[in-house]
């Protein structure tokens, strides 16, 4: 080629720059391989006036050529001539059906193959045409690189967005299932979400206790659960709560290319979902426990209120006597009890009792004792007979380890004559003129035995100045930090030596003395005392 011809070509190429720019712009807008091929086909047709443009593609050296654009079916006969190489190969032909066969390697190891027919005016491809064609090939290569980078970028964005979706869904699902109160709903939701986020085709959640399958939930609903376990592409995990195993199994991870293996991210996600389910189940359990506890607490409160009403809020005034009492239960429902009742004949019945044990059961027995006692003393009675009947009733009403110790007096306030009966209770202190007498005649505690052994009672005379201290062992057995009891002896001394102005002050002083002994040691038993003094 001489310089003039060379300059001509350069001039004409420079005119074609705009065409090259437009060509690249068109090619780089292609969204699919076919579109890229189609656009290139248009460019070649427009620039070379050739209608017979056939384009092939293969994604690696050993693959078969794939037809992208076919305008002449006979172009397939040229396929054996499409040789792959690390360089562009272009063969030009004259007087043949096709004027050009070319292969071009691409950066990702794939290849374009072109089989181009003759110009419409039947002329041969000029030197300019050949150069122009090579430049368009280069544009195709650049556009293809742009295309695959766009594809990679799209895939990367998709993948990143999907990771965000997975994390977001993990959080949202945790919140949602924590609001669900029905265990079945939260199990279904978590299985659903775990399957969707790992792209599993199917999933199963089994609840197993020992060797027994308690329940099975499948996803989707009416799919064959067996297919999940039969699959060789599956992942599973489990959590355990109260001896029940919750086993999550997911199978057949989907992709656009078919079923693929689950990856580490999927295993992490599944484990995270399982932990969320465990947390939700634990929360539901604690919630139910709290509700039950609150319900029981309210019932105990109710029982305690009823219980407190048995012990008189205000003691009756006994003419010529001073009387005061106190009951400090160690639990909400106590086992100690006292009562003062005026009988029809003007005498007074005073009782103090202590149920073995504490809590609701003891409170119920106290109620039984109180109701029965009041029923029996409505009319004429003998104290020993009443004791016998109370024994039988309590024996029948209670469990073997439960019984009630009690001390009952029937006081004639005018004369001071007092009949007493001690049913297994602590010896009650009675003092007259500074001399202590322990009142212990009676029999077994109520409800302890039912051998028909008769009770005994005795009579004392309360003179003016005489006093009785009714108490329960919650006082004498009150412990301090050194495990030392308050003791009978200390109480006796207190009873004898304390001579306050009235019964109420005596009771207050007694409690103060007990508290001085126990200091901060928690109260382990009910503290009950009743003090009667004849003026």
């Amino acid at each position, binding site marked *: 080629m001489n310089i003039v011809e060379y300059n001509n070509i350069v001039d004409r190429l420079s005119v074609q720059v705009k065409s090259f720019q437009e060509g690249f712009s068109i090619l780089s807008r292609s969204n699919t391989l076919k579109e890229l091929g189609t656009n290139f086909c248009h460019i070649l047709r427009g620039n070379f006036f050739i209608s017979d443009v056939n384009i092939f593609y293969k994604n690696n050296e050993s693959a078969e050529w794939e037809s992208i654009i076919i305008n002449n079916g006979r172009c397939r006969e040229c396929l054996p001539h499409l040789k792959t190489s690390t360089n562009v190969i272009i063969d030009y032909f004259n007087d043949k059906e096709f004027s050009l066969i070319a292969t071009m390697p691409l950066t990702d190891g794939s290849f374009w193959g072109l089989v181009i027919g003759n110009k419409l005016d039947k002329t041969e491809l000029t030197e300019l045409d050949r150069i122009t064609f090579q430049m368009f090939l280069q544009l195709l290569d650049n556009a293809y690189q742009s295309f695959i980078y766009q594809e990679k970028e799209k895939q990367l964005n*998709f993948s990143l967005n999907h990771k965000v979706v997975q994390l977001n869904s993990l959080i949202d699902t945790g919140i949602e299932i924590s609001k669900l109160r029905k265990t079945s709903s939260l199990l279904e939701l978590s299985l659903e979400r775990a399957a969707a986020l790992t792209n599993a085709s199917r999933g199963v959640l089994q609840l197993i206790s020992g060797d027994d399958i308690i329940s099975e939930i499948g996803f989707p609903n009416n799919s064959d659960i067996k297919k999940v376990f039969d699959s060789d592409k599956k992942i599973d995990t489990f959590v355990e709560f109260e001896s029940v195993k919750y086993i999550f199994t997911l199978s057949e991870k989907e992709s656009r290319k078919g079923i693929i293996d689950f990856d580490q991210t999927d295993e992490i996600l599944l484990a995270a979902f399982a932990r969320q389910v465990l947390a939700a189940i634990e929360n539901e359990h604690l919630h139910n426990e709290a509700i039950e506890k609150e319900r029981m607490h309210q019932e105990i409160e109710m029982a305690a209120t009823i219980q407190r009403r048995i012990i008189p809020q205000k003691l009756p005034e006994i003419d010529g006597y001073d009387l005061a009492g106190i009951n400090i239960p160690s639990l909400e429902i106590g086992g100690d009890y006292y009562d003062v009742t005026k009988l029809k004949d003007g005498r007074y019945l005073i009782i103090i009792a202590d149920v073995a044990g504490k809590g609701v059961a003891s409170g119920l027995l106290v109620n039984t004792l109180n109701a029965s006692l009041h029923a029996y003393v409505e009319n004429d009675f003998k104290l020993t007979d009443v004791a016998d009947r109370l024994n039988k009733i309590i024996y029948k009403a209670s469990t073997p380890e439960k019984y009630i110790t009690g001390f009952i007096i029937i006081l004639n306030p005018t004369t001071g004559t007092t009949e007493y009966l001690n049913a297994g209770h602590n010896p009650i202190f009675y003092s007259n003129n500074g001399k202590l007498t322990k009142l212990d005649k009676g029999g077994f505690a109520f409800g302890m035995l039912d051998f028909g052994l008769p009770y005994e009672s005795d009579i004392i005379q309360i003179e003016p100045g005489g006093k009785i201290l009714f108490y329960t062992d919650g006082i004498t057995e009150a412990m301090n930090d050194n495990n030392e009891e308050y003791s009978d002896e200390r109480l006796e001394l207190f009873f004898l030596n304390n001579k306050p102005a009235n019964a109420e002050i005596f009771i207050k002083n007694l409690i103060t003395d007990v508290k001085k002994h126990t200091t901060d040691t928690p109260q382990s038993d009910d503290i009950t005392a009743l003090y009667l003094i004849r003026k």
Partner: protein
Amino acid sequence: MLSEFNLVTETKDNCVVINTTGYINNIGGQKIVDEFYKHNGNGINNVILNLAQSNVVNSIGISFLIEIIEKLNQSNGKLIFSNLDPSIEKTFTIMGLFQFAKKADNLDEALKLL
């Protein structure tokens, strides 16, 4: 709990309404795309996808929906999602689908957007 996939199609005012039921996964997504191409081949360029009965979509299903969006974008067509479950709406938002498609609370609202 979610059942396996099914769809029912109706045409309204130069638009095809695809009502889906069940899990939109590889199978569900492919069925939606096949149905879309069937109608798009007949010149229908507007699609309403009613997901009232589908509250689970996996990423493969989403990739099929993206394919429909890309195809419609080339011909100035529209895709409108209706009756989206809140969790699906959030997923689609994160995946960027609403940059190229619209959403509506129900079918009537979706038809108004055409």
